[in-house]
Protein backbone atom coordinates (compact mmCIF):
# COMPACT_ATOMS: atom_id res chain seq x y z
CA UNK A 1 0.00 0.00 0.00
CA UNK A 2 1.37 3.39 -1.02
CA UNK A 3 2.67 5.49 1.84
CA UNK A 4 2.73 9.25 2.28
CA UNK A 5 4.38 11.88 4.42
CA UNK A 6 1.98 14.62 5.54
CA UNK A 7 3.37 18.07 6.30
CA UNK A 8 0.99 20.39 8.12
CA UNK A 9 2.24 23.94 7.83
CA UNK A 10 -0.11 25.15 10.53
CA UNK A 11 1.63 22.93 13.08
CA UNK A 12 5.20 23.59 11.96
CA UNK A 13 7.41 25.75 14.18
CA UNK A 14 10.34 25.76 11.73
CA UNK A 15 12.63 24.21 14.33
CA UNK A 16 14.41 22.33 11.51
CA UNK A 17 14.78 19.14 13.52
CA UNK A 18 13.68 17.34 10.33
CA UNK A 19 16.71 18.75 8.56
CA UNK A 20 19.07 17.57 11.29
CA UNK A 21 17.43 14.14 11.57
CA UNK A 22 17.76 13.65 7.81
CA UNK A 23 21.45 14.54 7.88
CA UNK A 24 22.03 12.27 10.84
CA UNK A 25 20.17 9.19 9.68
CA UNK A 26 21.46 9.40 6.13
CA UNK A 27 25.02 10.30 7.17
CA UNK A 28 25.12 13.50 5.10
CA UNK A 29 27.90 15.97 5.72
CA UNK A 30 27.23 19.67 6.19
CA UNK A 31 26.81 21.77 3.06
CA UNK A 32 28.91 24.84 2.48
CA UNK A 33 26.87 27.82 3.52
CA UNK A 34 26.76 31.58 3.83
CA UNK A 35 25.96 33.50 6.97
CA UNK A 36 23.05 35.71 6.05
CA UNK A 37 21.79 36.65 9.48
CA UNK A 38 18.58 34.73 8.80
CA UNK A 39 17.06 31.51 10.07
CA UNK A 40 18.18 29.49 7.07
CA UNK A 41 20.48 26.59 7.72
CA UNK A 42 20.54 25.59 4.05
CA UNK A 43 19.80 27.94 1.19
CA UNK A 44 18.98 25.30 -1.32
CA UNK A 45 18.52 21.56 -1.67
CA UNK A 46 21.77 19.84 -2.58
CA UNK A 47 23.61 16.56 -2.85
CA UNK A 48 23.90 16.46 0.95
CA UNK A 49 20.75 18.42 1.76
CA UNK A 50 17.65 16.36 1.09
CA UNK A 51 15.20 18.57 2.94
CA UNK A 52 15.12 22.09 4.31
CA UNK A 53 12.71 24.57 5.80
CA UNK A 54 12.01 27.65 3.68
CA UNK A 55 10.75 30.88 5.24
CA UNK A 56 8.26 33.08 3.40
CA UNK A 57 7.25 36.54 4.54
CA UNK A 58 3.90 37.65 3.22
CA UNK A 59 2.21 40.98 3.70
CA UNK A 60 -1.48 40.09 3.77
CA UNK A 61 -4.02 42.96 3.84
CA UNK A 62 -5.11 42.21 7.41
CA UNK A 63 -1.80 41.08 8.90
CA UNK A 64 1.77 40.09 8.29
CA UNK A 65 2.24 36.33 7.85
CA UNK A 66 5.29 34.17 8.23
CA UNK A 67 4.91 30.92 6.33
CA UNK A 68 7.09 27.84 6.57
CA UNK A 69 7.42 24.98 4.12
CA UNK A 70 9.56 21.88 3.96
CA UNK A 71 11.33 21.59 0.60
CA UNK A 72 12.01 18.00 -0.34
CA UNK A 73 11.36 15.33 -2.95
CA UNK A 74 7.60 15.09 -3.42
CA UNK A 75 7.70 11.38 -4.41
CA UNK A 76 5.32 11.95 -7.34
CA UNK A 77 2.82 9.31 -8.34
CA UNK A 78 4.11 9.72 -11.90
CA UNK A 79 7.69 10.97 -11.47
CA UNK A 80 9.15 13.09 -14.31
CA UNK A 81 12.70 12.27 -13.17
CA UNK A 82 12.14 8.56 -13.77
CA UNK A 83 10.52 9.27 -17.16
CA UNK A 84 13.50 11.23 -18.51
CA UNK A 85 16.30 9.07 -17.08
CA UNK A 86 18.13 7.51 -20.03
CA UNK A 87 20.09 5.16 -17.80
CA UNK A 88 16.99 3.69 -16.15
CA UNK A 89 18.45 4.64 -12.78
CA UNK A 90 15.27 6.05 -11.20
CA UNK A 91 12.35 3.89 -10.17
CA UNK A 92 9.30 3.94 -7.98
CA UNK A 93 9.24 1.48 -5.12
CA UNK A 94 6.06 -0.53 -5.59
CA UNK A 95 5.44 -1.15 -1.93
CA UNK A 96 5.86 2.38 -0.54
CA UNK A 97 5.60 4.56 -3.66
CA UNK A 98 8.93 6.23 -2.88
CA UNK A 99 10.95 7.42 -5.86
CA UNK A 100 14.51 6.09 -5.64
CA UNK A 101 17.74 6.82 -7.49
CA UNK A 102 20.04 3.86 -8.03
CA UNK A 103 23.41 5.61 -7.77
CA UNK A 104 25.25 2.68 -9.36
CA UNK A 105 23.27 3.19 -12.57
CA UNK A 106 23.24 7.02 -12.55
CA UNK A 107 25.70 8.64 -14.99
CA UNK A 108 25.35 12.19 -13.69
CA UNK A 109 23.75 13.74 -16.80
CA UNK A 110 21.40 15.89 -14.63
CA UNK A 111 18.42 15.33 -16.92
CA UNK A 112 16.27 14.47 -13.86
CA UNK A 113 17.15 17.75 -12.15
CA UNK A 114 15.72 19.76 -15.04
CA UNK A 115 12.68 17.53 -15.50
CA UNK A 116 11.55 17.82 -11.86
CA UNK A 117 8.75 20.38 -11.46
CA UNK A 118 9.43 21.03 -7.77
CA UNK A 119 11.85 23.16 -5.76
CA UNK A 120 13.96 24.23 -8.72
CA UNK A 121 14.74 20.62 -9.47
CA UNK A 122 14.93 18.23 -6.53
CA UNK A 123 17.63 15.72 -7.62
CA UNK A 124 21.01 17.33 -6.97
CA UNK A 125 24.49 16.45 -8.06
CA UNK A 126 27.46 15.38 -5.95
CA UNK A 127 30.82 15.82 -7.59
CA UNK A 128 32.52 13.93 -4.78
CA UNK A 129 31.81 12.19 -1.51
CA UNK A 130 33.07 14.20 1.45
CA UNK A 131 35.94 13.08 3.67
CA UNK A 132 33.73 12.83 6.76
CA UNK A 133 31.36 10.43 5.01
CA UNK A 134 34.26 8.40 3.62
CA UNK A 135 35.77 8.15 7.11
CA UNK A 136 32.46 6.90 8.48
CA UNK A 137 32.25 4.22 5.82
CA UNK A 138 35.96 3.33 6.17
CA UNK A 139 35.29 2.55 9.81
CA UNK A 140 32.97 -0.18 8.61
CA UNK A 141 29.72 1.70 9.17
CA UNK A 142 26.88 1.50 6.71
CA UNK A 143 25.09 4.36 5.01
CA UNK A 144 21.55 4.19 3.63
CA UNK A 145 21.67 3.84 -0.16
CA UNK A 146 24.87 4.06 -2.15
CA UNK A 147 27.45 6.85 -2.18
CA UNK A 148 28.77 7.15 -5.72
CA UNK A 149 30.66 10.30 -6.69
CA UNK A 150 29.39 12.04 -9.83
CA UNK A 151 25.74 11.01 -9.41
CA UNK A 152 22.43 12.55 -8.34
CA UNK A 153 21.00 12.47 -4.81
CA UNK A 154 17.70 13.24 -3.15
CA UNK A 155 15.34 12.09 -0.38
CA UNK A 156 14.88 8.31 -0.31
CA UNK A 157 11.91 8.41 2.05
CA UNK A 158 14.12 6.56 4.57
CA UNK A 159 12.94 3.42 2.80
CA UNK A 160 15.28 1.28 4.88
CA UNK A 161 13.55 2.50 8.04
CA UNK A 162 10.07 2.11 6.57
CA UNK A 163 10.79 -1.44 5.45
CA UNK A 164 11.67 -2.17 9.07
CA UNK A 165 8.46 -0.76 10.46
CA UNK A 166 9.78 2.68 11.40
CA UNK A 167 8.76 6.11 10.17
CA UNK A 168 11.13 8.28 8.11
CA UNK A 169 13.68 9.97 10.40
CA UNK A 170 12.24 13.47 9.84
CA UNK A 171 8.77 12.30 10.88
CA UNK A 172 9.97 10.48 13.99
CA UNK A 173 11.84 13.55 15.19
CA UNK A 174 9.23 16.24 14.45
CA UNK A 175 8.33 17.72 17.90
CA UNK A 176 4.95 19.32 17.04
CA UNK A 177 3.82 16.41 14.81
CA UNK A 178 3.76 18.72 11.79
CA UNK A 179 5.13 15.71 9.90
CA UNK A 180 3.13 12.50 9.93
CA UNK A 181 3.56 9.24 8.09
CA UNK A 182 1.20 6.46 7.11
CA UNK A 183 -0.85 4.91 4.33
CA UNK A 184 -1.54 7.47 1.65
CA UNK A 185 -5.34 7.19 1.94
CA UNK A 186 -5.14 7.64 5.69
CA UNK A 187 -2.88 10.70 5.38
CA UNK A 188 -5.30 12.26 2.88
CA UNK A 189 -8.14 11.73 5.34
CA UNK A 190 -6.11 13.35 8.14
CA UNK A 191 -5.33 16.26 5.81
CA UNK A 192 -9.01 16.66 4.88
CA UNK A 193 -10.06 16.82 8.51
CA UNK A 194 -7.28 19.29 9.29
CA UNK A 195 -8.24 21.61 6.41
CA UNK A 196 -11.86 21.56 7.58
CA UNK A 197 -10.74 22.48 11.10
CA UNK A 198 -8.45 25.26 9.87
CA UNK A 199 -11.24 26.73 7.76
CA UNK A 200 -13.50 26.68 10.79
CA UNK A 201 -10.82 28.65 12.62
CA UNK A 202 -10.82 31.31 9.92
CA UNK A 203 -7.99 30.12 7.66
CA UNK A 204 -9.94 30.84 4.49
CA UNK A 205 -7.18 29.65 2.17
CA UNK A 206 -6.43 26.39 4.00
CA UNK A 207 -5.95 23.68 1.39
CA UNK A 208 -4.40 20.32 0.57
CA UNK A 209 -1.55 20.18 -1.93
CA UNK A 210 -1.55 16.85 -3.73
CA UNK A 211 -1.46 17.84 -7.42
CA UNK A 212 -3.17 15.57 -9.93
CA UNK A 213 -0.90 16.55 -12.85
CA UNK A 214 1.97 14.50 -11.42
CA UNK A 215 -0.26 11.64 -10.34
CA UNK A 216 -0.59 12.92 -6.79
CA UNK A 217 2.37 13.20 -4.46
CA UNK A 218 3.85 11.01 -1.76
CA UNK A 219 4.46 14.18 0.25
CA UNK A 220 1.12 15.84 0.96
CA UNK A 221 0.94 19.39 2.26
CA UNK A 222 -1.67 21.15 4.35
CA UNK A 223 -1.14 24.82 3.47
CA UNK A 224 -2.68 28.01 4.80
CA UNK A 225 -2.23 29.96 1.58
CA UNK A 226 -2.07 29.35 -2.18
CA UNK A 227 0.69 27.02 -3.43
CA UNK A 228 2.49 29.80 -5.35
CA UNK A 229 3.15 31.62 -2.06
CA UNK A 230 5.42 28.74 -1.08
CA UNK A 231 7.11 28.47 -4.46
CA UNK A 232 4.99 25.47 -5.41
CA UNK A 233 3.57 25.23 -8.94
CA UNK A 234 -0.25 25.50 -8.82
CA UNK A 235 -0.71 22.89 -11.51
CA UNK A 236 2.50 20.92 -12.08
CA UNK A 237 2.62 18.39 -14.90
CA UNK A 238 4.78 15.43 -15.74
CA UNK A 239 7.50 17.09 -17.81
CA UNK A 240 7.15 14.60 -20.65
CA UNK A 241 3.35 14.98 -20.77
CA UNK A 242 3.39 16.92 -24.07
CA UNK A 243 6.27 14.99 -25.62
CA UNK A 244 4.29 13.88 -28.66
CA UNK A 245 2.99 17.40 -29.34
CA UNK A 246 6.49 18.79 -28.98
CA UNK A 247 7.92 16.22 -31.37
CA UNK A 248 5.12 17.03 -33.82
CA UNK A 249 5.87 20.75 -33.61
CA UNK A 250 9.48 20.05 -34.57
CA UNK A 251 8.58 17.58 -37.31
CA UNK A 252 5.85 19.79 -38.77
CA UNK A 253 8.36 22.65 -38.92
CA UNK A 254 10.77 20.36 -40.75
CA UNK A 255 7.93 19.37 -43.09
CA UNK A 256 7.02 22.98 -43.87
CA UNK A 257 10.65 23.89 -44.48
CA UNK A 258 11.05 20.89 -46.76
CA UNK A 259 8.06 21.84 -48.85
CA UNK A 260 8.25 25.63 -48.95
CA UNK A 261 11.84 26.66 -49.45
CA UNK A 262 13.39 23.36 -50.49
CA UNK A 263 10.82 22.05 -52.93
CA UNK A 264 10.16 25.49 -54.44
CA UNK A 265 13.76 26.70 -54.67
CA UNK A 266 15.54 23.50 -55.61
CA UNK A 267 12.90 22.56 -58.16
CA UNK A 268 13.48 25.91 -59.82
CA UNK A 269 17.23 25.20 -59.76
CA UNK A 270 16.58 22.07 -61.82
CA UNK A 271 14.99 24.12 -64.62
CA UNK A 272 17.66 26.80 -64.36
CA UNK A 273 20.40 24.22 -64.34
CA UNK A 274 19.34 22.66 -67.63
CA UNK A 275 20.57 25.73 -69.50
CA UNK A 276 23.82 25.84 -67.53
CA UNK A 277 24.82 22.18 -67.76
Amino acid sequence: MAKAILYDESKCTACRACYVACKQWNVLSAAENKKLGTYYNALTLGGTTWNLIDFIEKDDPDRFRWHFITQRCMHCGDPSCAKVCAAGAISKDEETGFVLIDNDKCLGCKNCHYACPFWEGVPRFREEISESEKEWMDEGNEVPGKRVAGTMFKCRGCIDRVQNGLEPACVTTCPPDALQFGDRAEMLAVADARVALLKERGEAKAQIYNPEGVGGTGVIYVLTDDPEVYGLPADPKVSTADMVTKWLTGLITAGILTIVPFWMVFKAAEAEGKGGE
Partner: protein
Amino acid sequence: MHEVTHYWHWLLAIYLFLGGLAGACGFTGHFAEVFSKGRLKKLAEIGSYCVLPIIVLSLIILVADLARPLYFWRFIITFRPSSLMSQGTWLLTLFAIFGGVITPAFFLSEKVDALSFLKGKDGARKVCQWIGAILGIGVAGYTGVLLSVKSLPMWGATSFLPAVFVASATSTGIALILLIANLQAKKDEVAIGALEKADAIVIAFEAIAFAVLIFALKSAGGSAADAAAVLLSGEYAMMFWIGVVIVALLGPLALELYGISAAKKAHPPASLTTLACISVLVGGFIVRWMFMYGGQVVR
Protein backbone atom coordinates in the same frame (compact mmCIF):
# COMPACT_ATOMS: atom_id res chain seq x y z
CA MET B 1 15.99 32.93 -0.52
CA HIS B 2 17.18 30.97 -3.51
CA GLU B 3 20.45 30.05 -5.10
CA VAL B 4 20.24 29.09 -8.74
CA THR B 5 21.95 25.84 -9.68
CA HIS B 6 23.40 25.72 -13.19
CA TYR B 7 24.34 22.16 -13.99
CA TRP B 8 24.02 22.42 -17.76
CA HIS B 9 26.31 24.98 -19.34
CA TRP B 10 28.20 25.99 -22.49
CA LEU B 11 29.39 22.47 -23.29
CA LEU B 12 25.81 21.35 -23.80
CA ALA B 13 25.02 24.54 -25.75
CA ILE B 14 27.80 23.55 -28.17
CA TYR B 15 26.42 20.01 -28.27
CA LEU B 16 22.89 21.17 -29.12
CA PHE B 17 24.29 23.46 -31.82
CA LEU B 18 26.46 20.74 -33.37
CA GLY B 19 23.69 18.13 -33.18
CA GLY B 20 21.30 20.40 -35.05
CA LEU B 21 23.98 21.35 -37.57
CA ALA B 22 24.92 17.73 -38.30
CA GLY B 23 21.28 16.69 -38.66
CA ALA B 24 20.58 19.58 -41.02
CA CYS B 25 23.67 18.81 -43.14
CA GLY B 26 22.19 15.34 -43.57
CA PHE B 27 18.84 16.49 -44.91
CA THR B 28 19.31 19.89 -46.58
CA GLY B 29 21.80 18.60 -49.16
CA HIS B 30 19.68 15.50 -49.65
CA PHE B 31 16.51 17.42 -50.42
CA ALA B 32 18.46 19.78 -52.70
CA GLU B 33 19.43 16.76 -54.76
CA VAL B 34 16.01 15.11 -54.68
CA PHE B 35 13.96 18.18 -55.61
CA SER B 36 16.39 19.31 -58.33
CA LYS B 37 16.19 15.78 -59.77
CA GLY B 38 19.91 15.23 -59.32
CA ARG B 39 21.06 18.61 -60.62
CA LEU B 40 22.29 19.63 -57.14
CA LYS B 41 23.77 16.23 -56.24
CA LYS B 42 27.01 18.00 -55.34
CA LEU B 43 25.25 19.65 -52.36
CA ALA B 44 24.20 16.26 -50.98
CA GLU B 45 27.82 15.18 -51.30
CA ILE B 46 29.15 18.25 -49.47
CA GLY B 47 26.51 17.85 -46.76
CA SER B 48 27.26 14.16 -46.27
CA TYR B 49 30.98 14.82 -45.71
CA CYS B 50 30.14 17.34 -42.98
CA VAL B 51 28.02 14.90 -40.94
CA LEU B 52 30.60 12.53 -39.43
CA PRO B 53 33.15 15.04 -38.10
CA ILE B 54 30.40 17.14 -36.52
CA ILE B 55 28.60 14.11 -35.03
CA VAL B 56 31.84 12.70 -33.62
CA LEU B 57 32.69 16.06 -32.07
CA SER B 58 29.20 16.41 -30.60
CA LEU B 59 29.31 12.87 -29.17
CA ILE B 60 32.69 13.56 -27.56
CA ILE B 61 31.17 16.66 -25.95
CA LEU B 62 28.08 14.76 -24.84
CA VAL B 63 30.12 12.03 -23.20
CA ALA B 64 32.59 14.51 -21.68
CA ASP B 65 29.70 16.33 -20.04
CA LEU B 66 28.62 13.21 -18.15
CA ALA B 67 29.93 13.04 -14.62
CA ARG B 68 30.83 9.40 -15.23
CA PRO B 69 31.84 9.34 -18.90
CA LEU B 70 33.33 5.83 -18.69
CA TYR B 71 29.84 4.45 -18.12
CA PHE B 72 28.49 5.92 -21.36
CA TRP B 73 27.83 2.45 -22.71
CA ARG B 74 24.90 2.19 -20.30
CA PHE B 75 23.04 4.71 -22.47
CA ILE B 76 23.63 2.46 -25.48
CA ILE B 77 22.40 -0.73 -23.83
CA THR B 78 19.35 0.96 -22.33
CA PHE B 79 16.41 1.95 -24.49
CA ARG B 80 13.83 4.03 -22.68
CA PRO B 81 11.30 5.54 -25.09
CA SER B 82 10.02 8.02 -22.48
CA SER B 83 13.50 9.56 -22.16
CA LEU B 84 14.49 12.07 -24.81
CA MET B 85 18.12 11.47 -23.97
CA SER B 86 17.65 7.80 -24.73
CA GLN B 87 15.80 8.58 -27.98
CA GLY B 88 18.61 10.98 -28.90
CA THR B 89 21.34 8.44 -28.21
CA TRP B 90 19.70 6.05 -30.64
CA LEU B 91 18.92 8.69 -33.26
CA LEU B 92 22.50 9.98 -33.15
CA THR B 93 23.96 6.48 -33.42
CA LEU B 94 21.80 5.47 -36.39
CA PHE B 95 22.26 8.87 -38.06
CA ALA B 96 26.03 8.62 -37.69
CA ILE B 97 25.94 5.22 -39.40
CA PHE B 98 23.62 6.09 -42.31
CA GLY B 99 24.22 9.80 -42.77
CA GLY B 100 27.79 9.99 -41.52
CA VAL B 101 29.42 6.79 -42.75
CA ILE B 102 27.46 4.90 -45.42
CA THR B 103 26.24 7.83 -47.56
CA PRO B 104 29.60 9.62 -47.80
CA ALA B 105 31.26 6.24 -48.47
CA PHE B 106 29.18 5.96 -51.66
CA PHE B 107 30.26 9.44 -52.73
CA LEU B 108 33.90 8.72 -51.91
CA SER B 109 33.83 5.50 -53.91
CA GLU B 110 34.17 7.68 -57.02
CA LYS B 111 37.54 8.89 -55.76
CA VAL B 112 38.90 6.26 -53.37
CA ASP B 113 39.93 2.88 -54.76
CA ALA B 114 39.43 1.06 -51.47
CA LEU B 115 35.70 1.86 -51.70
CA SER B 116 35.39 0.92 -55.37
CA PHE B 117 33.00 -1.92 -54.48
CA LEU B 118 30.38 0.81 -53.85
CA LYS B 119 31.10 2.60 -57.13
CA GLY B 120 28.18 3.19 -59.46
CA LYS B 121 25.61 1.84 -56.99
CA ASP B 122 23.61 5.06 -57.07
CA GLY B 123 20.31 3.39 -56.22
CA ALA B 124 21.68 1.98 -52.97
CA ARG B 125 23.28 5.33 -52.19
CA LYS B 126 19.93 7.10 -52.60
CA VAL B 127 18.17 4.68 -50.26
CA CYS B 128 20.81 5.15 -47.54
CA GLN B 129 20.77 8.89 -48.10
CA TRP B 130 16.98 8.97 -47.65
CA ILE B 131 17.29 7.04 -44.39
CA GLY B 132 20.08 9.38 -43.29
CA ALA B 133 18.01 12.45 -44.16
CA ILE B 134 15.01 11.26 -42.17
CA LEU B 135 17.25 10.42 -39.21
CA GLY B 136 18.86 13.86 -39.66
CA ILE B 137 15.48 15.52 -39.24
CA GLY B 138 15.03 13.39 -36.13
CA VAL B 139 18.39 14.49 -34.72
CA ALA B 140 17.75 18.18 -35.43
CA GLY B 141 14.29 17.88 -33.90
CA TYR B 142 15.43 15.98 -30.83
CA THR B 143 17.83 18.73 -29.72
CA GLY B 144 14.80 21.01 -29.29
CA VAL B 145 12.46 18.40 -27.84
CA LEU B 146 15.15 17.40 -25.30
CA LEU B 147 14.97 20.82 -23.66
CA SER B 148 11.22 21.19 -24.12
CA VAL B 149 10.29 18.19 -21.94
CA LYS B 150 11.78 19.86 -18.89
CA SER B 151 10.04 21.78 -16.13
CA LEU B 152 11.71 25.12 -16.93
CA PRO B 153 9.17 27.53 -18.42
CA MET B 154 11.25 28.96 -21.29
CA TRP B 155 11.97 25.44 -22.51
CA GLY B 156 8.87 23.51 -21.65
CA ALA B 157 5.88 25.78 -20.96
CA THR B 158 4.94 25.85 -24.66
CA SER B 159 5.41 23.37 -27.50
CA PHE B 160 7.28 25.78 -29.78
CA LEU B 161 10.93 25.42 -28.75
CA PRO B 162 11.40 22.45 -31.13
CA ALA B 163 10.10 24.61 -34.02
CA VAL B 164 12.73 27.27 -33.30
CA PHE B 165 15.47 24.67 -32.97
CA VAL B 166 14.54 22.87 -36.21
CA ALA B 167 14.37 26.14 -38.17
CA SER B 168 17.65 27.35 -36.68
CA ALA B 169 19.34 24.00 -37.34
CA THR B 170 18.13 23.99 -40.95
CA SER B 171 19.46 27.49 -41.47
CA THR B 172 22.88 26.57 -40.07
CA GLY B 173 23.00 23.40 -42.17
CA ILE B 174 22.29 25.35 -45.36
CA ALA B 175 24.85 27.98 -44.31
CA LEU B 176 27.61 25.40 -43.81
CA ILE B 177 26.96 23.73 -47.17
CA LEU B 178 26.72 27.16 -48.83
CA LEU B 179 29.96 28.26 -47.18
CA ILE B 180 31.79 25.23 -48.57
CA ALA B 181 30.16 25.47 -52.02
CA ASN B 182 31.09 29.14 -52.12
CA LEU B 183 34.75 28.46 -51.29
CA GLN B 184 35.25 25.91 -54.04
CA ALA B 185 37.45 26.84 -56.99
CA LYS B 186 34.87 25.81 -59.59
CA LYS B 187 31.74 27.49 -58.33
CA ASP B 188 28.23 26.35 -59.21
CA GLU B 189 26.38 29.66 -59.33
CA VAL B 190 23.00 27.95 -59.71
CA ALA B 191 23.59 25.93 -56.53
CA ILE B 192 24.84 28.96 -54.61
CA GLY B 193 21.88 31.08 -55.71
CA ALA B 194 19.43 28.31 -54.76
CA LEU B 195 20.99 27.84 -51.32
CA GLU B 196 20.91 31.59 -50.65
CA LYS B 197 17.26 31.75 -51.57
CA ALA B 198 16.41 28.68 -49.49
CA ASP B 199 18.29 30.03 -46.48
CA ALA B 200 16.56 33.42 -46.73
CA ILE B 201 13.16 31.70 -46.61
CA VAL B 202 14.23 29.41 -43.75
CA ILE B 203 15.42 32.46 -41.77
CA ALA B 204 12.03 34.10 -42.34
CA PHE B 205 10.39 30.95 -40.91
CA GLU B 206 12.82 30.94 -38.01
CA ALA B 207 11.83 34.53 -37.21
CA ILE B 208 8.17 33.48 -37.26
CA ALA B 209 8.93 30.51 -34.99
CA PHE B 210 10.70 32.84 -32.55
CA ALA B 211 7.75 35.26 -32.59
CA VAL B 212 5.28 32.43 -31.97
CA LEU B 213 7.37 31.02 -29.09
CA ILE B 214 7.70 34.39 -27.38
CA PHE B 215 4.06 35.29 -27.93
CA ALA B 216 2.99 31.90 -26.54
CA LEU B 217 5.22 32.34 -23.48
CA LYS B 218 3.86 35.82 -22.86
CA SER B 219 0.25 34.78 -23.19
CA ALA B 220 0.78 31.74 -20.94
CA GLY B 221 1.43 34.22 -18.11
CA GLY B 222 3.08 33.46 -14.78
CA SER B 223 6.61 32.11 -14.89
CA ALA B 224 6.38 31.59 -18.68
CA ALA B 225 5.78 35.33 -19.15
CA ASP B 226 8.72 36.01 -16.83
CA ALA B 227 10.84 33.75 -19.06
CA ALA B 228 9.79 35.74 -22.15
CA ALA B 229 10.76 38.95 -20.35
CA VAL B 230 14.24 37.54 -19.69
CA LEU B 231 14.74 37.54 -23.47
CA LEU B 232 12.84 40.69 -24.40
CA SER B 233 13.96 43.08 -21.71
CA GLY B 234 15.79 41.14 -19.00
CA GLU B 235 19.16 39.53 -18.42
CA TYR B 236 19.41 38.08 -21.93
CA ALA B 237 17.86 40.97 -23.87
CA MET B 238 21.19 42.04 -25.36
CA MET B 239 21.90 38.51 -26.51
CA PHE B 240 18.40 38.22 -27.95
CA TRP B 241 18.21 41.53 -29.80
CA ILE B 242 21.78 41.61 -31.07
CA GLY B 243 22.84 37.95 -31.12
CA VAL B 244 19.58 36.44 -32.35
CA VAL B 245 17.61 39.19 -34.09
CA ILE B 246 20.60 40.77 -35.85
CA VAL B 247 23.34 38.13 -36.12
CA ALA B 248 21.16 35.04 -36.64
CA LEU B 249 18.17 36.54 -38.45
CA LEU B 250 18.12 40.05 -39.96
CA GLY B 251 21.83 40.38 -40.79
CA PRO B 252 22.19 37.26 -42.94
CA LEU B 253 18.69 37.75 -44.34
CA ALA B 254 19.63 41.23 -45.61
CA LEU B 255 22.94 39.98 -47.04
CA GLU B 256 21.23 37.08 -48.80
CA LEU B 257 18.42 39.23 -50.20
CA TYR B 258 21.01 41.68 -51.48
CA GLY B 259 22.94 38.80 -53.05
CA ILE B 260 19.81 37.39 -54.70
CA SER B 261 18.76 40.76 -56.16
CA ALA B 262 22.31 41.67 -57.25
CA ALA B 263 22.75 38.30 -58.97
CA LYS B 264 20.24 39.34 -61.63
CA LYS B 265 22.54 42.14 -62.81
CA ALA B 266 26.06 41.01 -61.96
CA HIS B 267 27.70 38.39 -59.75
CA PRO B 268 27.63 39.69 -56.18
CA PRO B 269 30.94 39.51 -54.33
CA ALA B 270 31.48 36.05 -52.87
CA SER B 271 32.66 37.56 -49.62
CA LEU B 272 29.12 38.79 -48.91
CA THR B 273 27.83 35.22 -49.11
CA THR B 274 30.65 34.02 -46.86
CA LEU B 275 29.82 36.72 -44.35
CA ALA B 276 26.14 35.75 -44.38
CA CYS B 277 27.03 32.10 -43.77
CA ILE B 278 29.33 32.90 -40.87
CA SER B 279 26.66 35.16 -39.41
CA VAL B 280 24.10 32.34 -39.58
CA LEU B 281 26.48 29.86 -37.95
CA VAL B 282 27.53 32.23 -35.16
CA GLY B 283 23.89 33.25 -34.71
CA GLY B 284 22.79 29.60 -34.52
CA PHE B 285 25.26 29.02 -31.74
CA ILE B 286 24.06 32.14 -29.91
CA VAL B 287 20.50 30.78 -30.13
CA ARG B 288 21.57 27.59 -28.28
CA TRP B 289 23.67 29.53 -25.78
CA MET B 290 20.83 31.94 -25.03
CA PHE B 291 18.29 29.17 -24.44
CA MET B 292 20.73 27.11 -22.36
CA TYR B 293 21.55 29.93 -19.94
CA GLY B 294 18.53 32.20 -20.35
CA GLY B 295 16.21 29.24 -19.85
CA GLN B 296 17.68 28.61 -16.41
CA VAL B 297 17.03 32.13 -15.11
CA VAL B 298 13.34 31.52 -14.38
CA ARG B 299 12.42 28.23 -12.73
